[in-house]
């Protein structure tokens, strides 16, 4: 917030808002098209881009003066990845034996 002029951050907020609405429309359209195994991947990619936009610009992770904020965000994502990644690799490989 502090590094930018107030009006330029307003422009950013509206641009992000438009991008989020466009992303929602895109997810709905992509779901109607048969992309074989990639439907879920496309939906999750769009959702992740939208979530990143919200975190960076609306939650001010980008330009945050406090570096500890970034540390908390990254460690939360890291442990979420362990939770989902290790659980799913277990279930995905159970039929191997």
């Amino acid at each position, binding site marked *: *917030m502090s590094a930018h002029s*107030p009006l330029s*951050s*307003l422009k950013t*907020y*509206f641009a992000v*808002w438009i991008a*989020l*609405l466009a992303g*929602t429309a895109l*997810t*709905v359209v992509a*779901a*109607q*098209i*048969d*992309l074989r195994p990639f*439907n879920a991947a496309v*939906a*999750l990619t*769009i*959702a992740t881009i*939208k*979530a990143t936009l*919200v*975190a960076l*610009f*609306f*939650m001010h992770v980008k330009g945050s*003066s*406090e570096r*500890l*904020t970034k540390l*908390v*965000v990254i*460690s*939360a*994502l890291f*442990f*979420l990845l362990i*939770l*989902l990644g290790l*659980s*799913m690799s277990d*279930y*995905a490989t159970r039929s191997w034996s």
Partner: protein
Amino acid sequence: MSDSQVAAVQGEVHDPGLRHHFAEREQQRDASSLGMWVFLATEVMFFGGMFCAYLIYRRMYFGEFAAASQTLSWKLGATNTAVLICSSLTVVLAVWAAQTGRRTMLIGNLVLTIILGLVFLGIKSIEYKEKFERHHVPGASFEFHEIIPGHHQQYANPQHAQIFFALYFVMTGLHALHMIIGIGLFIYLLLMSWKGRFTPEYNTPIEIGGLYWHFVDIIWIYLFPLLYLIDLHK
């Protein structure tokens, strides 16, 4: 000698908006913000467990999940997504208004946020009502007679479809609970703003409340495609 140490020494000329255990406003603000982020990290793990359960069962019973997902209205889900995205914009505008000392804009955006939050819950309640009417609520009266999308004449196993609806109600229900808490927080922030408690120097509660609201929005951004849009093309 840094500014913070100087400020700590000059304790006698005390800034009334500064708690005595903080050296300066900036430090006080950063501590509050960090506290909220740590709470949100615990929320990530809390919802993460449910997303994990969802992924495991979706992989096991994909056909039933697709059949059950298609009984939901993606139009209502998409509308609610747009409503939440708009509310995130009004929240960030409220934070901006508080930081730049625009009282009317702050109050207006807080009111809009509360209204959009209520619209979201209203649409959600329409969806829940429909689930009750169609006996899609897990439990003794659960019924499910749908064909698996893309498989001719193969009916979905109701037991497995029930798992989808259990996850649907737990995940959207806990999300809705977060929305209700968020609306409560914003009503409080609105009252404080009305009393003129926030200034460009002190607006941390608005900022912290905003962080919470955006987090709840992010959860919905994932819930929408995962619950409403499974195999929609079939």
